[in-house]
């Protein structure tokens, strides 16, 4: 097996599928009443569907009750952000890390340790912004260290070493009482009150997660078209060639881990505020694999896949229980996951693009046929 082969097997050319439209800086004379060119260029990238989705997301709390706003909406967005970090790393960097939930969990723990929780003996009680800043920075550093370690390996080895790192951290958190409070973890970690807005309420918290999710989404969207992102995709597709072109392959990969770590850390802070608690169970093997399930379910070759996957996952988690008994949830999610992996390698988003291609949509996307 070559590294390129398995990468192809995984993301059937995220980059080649969508050649980034080169911005053509042709200065067109402004006709009367026309918009400035940068706005036009922006307009060309924003379709009707973007506006509809954005409006729907913004108006969602107005039509949904607080259960749907908080439990479904906010949770999907927060989980989606963690999954987005994996999508970025896996889809664009070709490195599938199972430790993203660990990074998120570490950020959550650090918020509890630096900020305030029910455990006054451990929590330092710093103001929320300082605690969050430290948590995100330290978790990102941790992710960078994980990356530095795992870029020595390739493909499946990466999955295994990140899985092992994640589990080692899980056991560390479970067995350490002085810092992580062992099995119990931390309780009563509440989102802050800022400028009179109480983020403990459903709607403000939903908008907070939405803002973070949108920021993360557009950050990834822009980054993969920036020189760094393009180089990263080059490294994914052919590290040797990139190396001989003078790119520092290792540095690009480690940097990708750092960026993904940042996204996961933000998601982790949101998740700990969402749950109001953190314990080793939040980042055990099941939780780590859930993130992979979410990312694969949605489709790893587009950033939106992470959020689609998260929404489907959260919906299944909440409503599959009504169809089957609570204990059989894993059977349902495992079965859905298996079906998606077996029949649509690009996830739900892949099904969508296939459908569009079949219906002859104008912007039909040609995905290279995978070798059977």
């Amino acid at each position: 097996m070559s590294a390129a082969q398995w990468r192809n097997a995984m993301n059937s050319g995220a980059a080649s599928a969508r050649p980034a439209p080169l911005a053509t800086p042709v200065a067109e004379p402004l006709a009367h009443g026309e918009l400035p060119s940068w706005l036009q260029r922006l307009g060309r990238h924003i379709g009707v569907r973007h506006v509809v989705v954005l409006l729907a997301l913004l108006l969602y709390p107005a039509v949904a009750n607080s259960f749907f706003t908080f439990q479904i909406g906010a949770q999907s967005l927060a989980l989606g952000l963690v999954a987005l970090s994996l999508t970025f790393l896996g889809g664009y960097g070709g490195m599938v890390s199972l430790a993203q939930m660990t990074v998120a969990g570490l950020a959550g723990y650090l918020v509890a340790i630096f900020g305030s929780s029910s455990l006054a003996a451990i929590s330092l009680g710093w103001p929320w912004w300082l605690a969050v800043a430290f948590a995100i920075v330290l978790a990102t550093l941790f992710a960078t260290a994980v990356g530095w370690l795992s870029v020595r390996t390739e493909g499946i080895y990466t999955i295994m070493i990140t899985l092992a790192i994640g589990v080692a951290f899980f056991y560390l958190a479970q067995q350490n009482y002085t810092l992580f409070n062992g099995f119990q973890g931390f309780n009563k970690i509440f989102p802050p009150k800022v400028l009179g807005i109480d983020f403990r309420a459903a709607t403000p918290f939903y908008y907070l997660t939405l803002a973070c999710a949108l920021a993360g989404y557009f950050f990834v969207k822009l980054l993969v078209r920036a020189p760094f992102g393009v180089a990263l995709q080059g490294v994914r597709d052919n590290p040797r060639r990139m190396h001989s072109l003078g790119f520092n392959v290792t540095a690009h990969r480690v940097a990708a881990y750092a960026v993904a770590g940042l996204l996961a850390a933000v998601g982790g802070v949101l998740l700990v505020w969402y749950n109001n608690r953190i314990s080793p169970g939040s980042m055990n093997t099941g939780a780590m694999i859930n993130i992979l399930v979410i990312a694969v379910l949605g489709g790893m070759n587009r950033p939106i896949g992470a959020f689609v996957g998260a929404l489907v996952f959260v919906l299944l988690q909440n409503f599959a229980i009504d169809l089957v008994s609570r204990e059989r949830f894993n059977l349902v999610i495992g079965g859905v996951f298996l079906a998606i992996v077996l029949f649509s390698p690009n996830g739900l988003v892949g099904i969508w693009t296939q459908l569009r291609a079949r219906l002859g949509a104008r912007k039909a996307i040609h995905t290279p046929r995978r070798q059977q």
Partner: protein
Amino acid sequence: MSRNQKLATWLVLGLPIAALSLWAIADNARLYFTTLLNSLTLASLYFLVASGFTLVFGLMRNVNLAHGSLYLFGAYVGWMVGEQTGSWVLAVVAGFLSAAVVGLLLQVVIFRHMQGQDLRQTLVTIGIAIVLADLMLWIWGAEIYTFDPPAWIYGSTALPLVEKFPTYRIAVLVGAIAIGLGLWWFLARTRVGMMIRAGVDDRGMLAASGINVQLVFAVTFAIGAGMAGLAGVVGGSALSISPGEDTRYLLASLVVVIVGGMGSVGGAAIGALLIGLAEQFGLAYAPTYSVVFTFVIMVLALAFRPRGIMGRPA
């Protein structure tokens, strides 16, 4: 690495360990040797599970993340057969066969159709592991099962320094060594073993020499899966069977194989020994950080030999 560097590495790693061991023996010899024997028992179990795992990977480049599920499945079936017939040997056979059949089914139904798509195979096995874990929870519930080893190795043996040690655990150690040697003999001296080794090195050339590669794959997968099931019964008699053991043994085999080197049975033995020692000594002397030791070993192994101790460039 030059000879001096190698020597330096051994000294840097070996001297502190030797010093600590001497201190531990002087402090409490019985604890030290009991821990040592426990480590060897655990290492035997890990070797049994990991050797099947590494065999399957070595030939098919397929990381079967459902390997832990096969362990648990073999254990459950073995337990049922053992309860029905009262024969432990039959339980072991049933554990081996049931897991081998499931492995064979997986190979024929799923992996054969996605040859070379490693990541997809990995994802599929994760899905299978989730589904199997839930099915087993459904069938056998969340109870903890233990079953008794046969009467003739039940009880304890008096050993110098340790006083009493369960005979069964010594038998597990001896059995693992025997199975390891058997596996080595099978791979090194038989025709099928030769084909498997050839497949590890060059799959395409093996197929071109007119050998039915699919059959070799199926046989290897069945043996690898069967080893997991066998280990399930052995482990279920030494320790216990409960939901969650599947992940535990999957992770153990992952770490063992990362440290020892993918696709090498000898590497699996070395890795299992290191991890078994690290886990048990960690548990005995520094319980809070026992898992961290395992992790440190993995990091060290990867830092110096990214493909594992016995790993070769692919």
